[in-house]
């Protein structure tokens, strides 16, 4: 028996609105499957399950705001898969549980009664449920034409064809996002004793490698410098793990994986830094593909819960516009943020000769409770070294 809860998607989140169920009782889910959509200050988030099993009961109806940690649904474990809705024989001592109306608390027996949709969800055929889930349409929003108002496949098809019935493009509430950023950054500056380091990284080799790699490739396969930066940071963290993890109540816990929170600017103002998971294990091409996907979904407000909950460090890259240097504010409970400024041409000394060279400023802001400037310098130096050997990334 597992409990699917309202996740914490960052230090600044206290509650979320359950918008929609994408799974229904009786559905089998695997770890990582998207079960529900939750509205947060960072947009609509697709929430994944940590546990595999069968959805046994939904505890919260769409539209409800609940605090972080609130049970949202019950899962029967894979080993105890009960064939719903056939009731298990009840022990003679306990009477059959009464049908409760709008499912209040998560206290059912392990082998629970048949799930016959109390009130929260209209009856619907499995095919209708599947299509509704695929199209992102809430079953409650569909008028059923089947027996007892049951939603049939044809009803969903009709609803899907009507633009207004399909779930609206969930816009981002930038004022909400600003409040979330303000809360997290205020906490960061109060709690985390930051120190800052900066260095200049020559980009001639990285640029030459990118040009060669991109020549002859169609645009969708081309790489940006950001992909090399992210991969270099990920590999450097393998050597300096004290920058990859979390610090809670003064205790540093190194993270098991390297999940790089990648700062994405939202048009109109706003910022979100979802994770590229296990960036150190991805090829540069894979990092680039993940980055493209992540930026698109961050800007349309459709990230996944693990992407917001899992970052173990943040990287902010200014791209080819803007300014030369950025000193980040650490996103708690992380312990470091790496910044890359705009690449610029500067005079550079190579083999005793002054030559024009593309360079960028790389910075580190890190948590003095966990590391010192000496180690931080080693991290930036390692990032620099890796960017001088782009073929090895």
């Amino acid at each position, binding site marked *: 028996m597992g409990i699917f809860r309202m996740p914490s998607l960052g230090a600044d989140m206290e509650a979320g609105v359950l918008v929609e169920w994408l799974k229904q009782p009786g559905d089998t889910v695997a770890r990582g499957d998207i079960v529900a959509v939750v509205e947060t200050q960072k947009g609509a988030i697709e929430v994944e399950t940590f546990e595999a099993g069968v959805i046994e009961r939904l505890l919260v109806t769409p539209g409800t705001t609940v605090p972080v940690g609130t049970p949202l649904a019950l899962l029967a474990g894979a080993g105890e898969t009960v064939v719903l809705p056939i009731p298990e024989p009840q022990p003679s001592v306990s009477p059959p549980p009464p049908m409760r109306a709008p499912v209040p608390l998560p206290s059912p027996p392990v082998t629970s009664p048949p799930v016959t949709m109390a009130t929260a969800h209209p009856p619907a055929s499995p095919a209708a449920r599947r299509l509704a889930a695929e199209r992102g349409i809430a079953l409650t929003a569909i008028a059923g034409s089947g027996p007892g108002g049951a939603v049939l496949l044809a009803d969903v098809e009709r609803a899907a064809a009507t633009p207004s019935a399909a779930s609206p493009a969930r816009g981002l509430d930038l004022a909400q996002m600003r409040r979330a950023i303000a809360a997290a950054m205020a906490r960061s500056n109060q709690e985390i004793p930051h120190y800052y380091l900066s260095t200049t990284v020559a980009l001639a080799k990285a640029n030459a490698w990118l040009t060669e790699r991109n020549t*002859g490739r169609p645009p969708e396969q081309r790489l*940006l410098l950001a992909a090399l930066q992210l991969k270099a940071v990920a590999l450097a963290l393998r050597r300096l793990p004290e920058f990859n993890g979390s610090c809670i109540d003064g205790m540093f816990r190194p993270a098991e994986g390297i999940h790089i929170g990648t700062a994405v*600017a939202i*048009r109109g103002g706003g910022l979100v830094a979802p994770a590229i998971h296990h960036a150190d294990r991805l090829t540069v091409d894979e990092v680039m593909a993940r980055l493209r996907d992540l930026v698109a979904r961050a800007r349309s407000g459709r990230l996944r819960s693990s992407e917001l909950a899992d970052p173990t460090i943040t990287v902010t890259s200014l791209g080819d516009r803007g300014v030369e240097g950025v000193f980040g504010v650490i996103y708690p409970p992380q312990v470091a943020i790496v910044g890359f400024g705009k690449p610029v041409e500067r005079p550079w000394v190579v083999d005793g000769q002054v030559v024009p060279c593309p360079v960028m400023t790389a910075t580190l802001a890190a948590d003095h409770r966990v590391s010192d400037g000496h180690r931080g310098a080693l991290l930036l130096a390692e990032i620099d070294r890796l960017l001088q050997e782009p073929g090895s990334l």
Partner: protein
Amino acid sequence: MTPDDVRRVVLEELSNIAPEADLALLDPAADLREALDIDSMDHLNFVTALHNRLGVAIPEVDYPRLITLDGAIAYLMADPAIAAKAGIA
């Protein structure tokens, strides 16, 4: 394809990237990156979309020629793929 057809495609793709912008007010000689706050990822998506819709290769060395709206239209009209389509039309 006529220059107007190409202009329409370019404007459609720009509005996908910058949906809040009023492209009717866009100065055709302005730097698109500044005028529409386009970053390197946006620009790559713009080039990708033009490539997919028009069949124009747009190698990286030609990116500077796409910096303005007028420049982009002129560049695309000069491409053999577009010229061939113009011939058919």
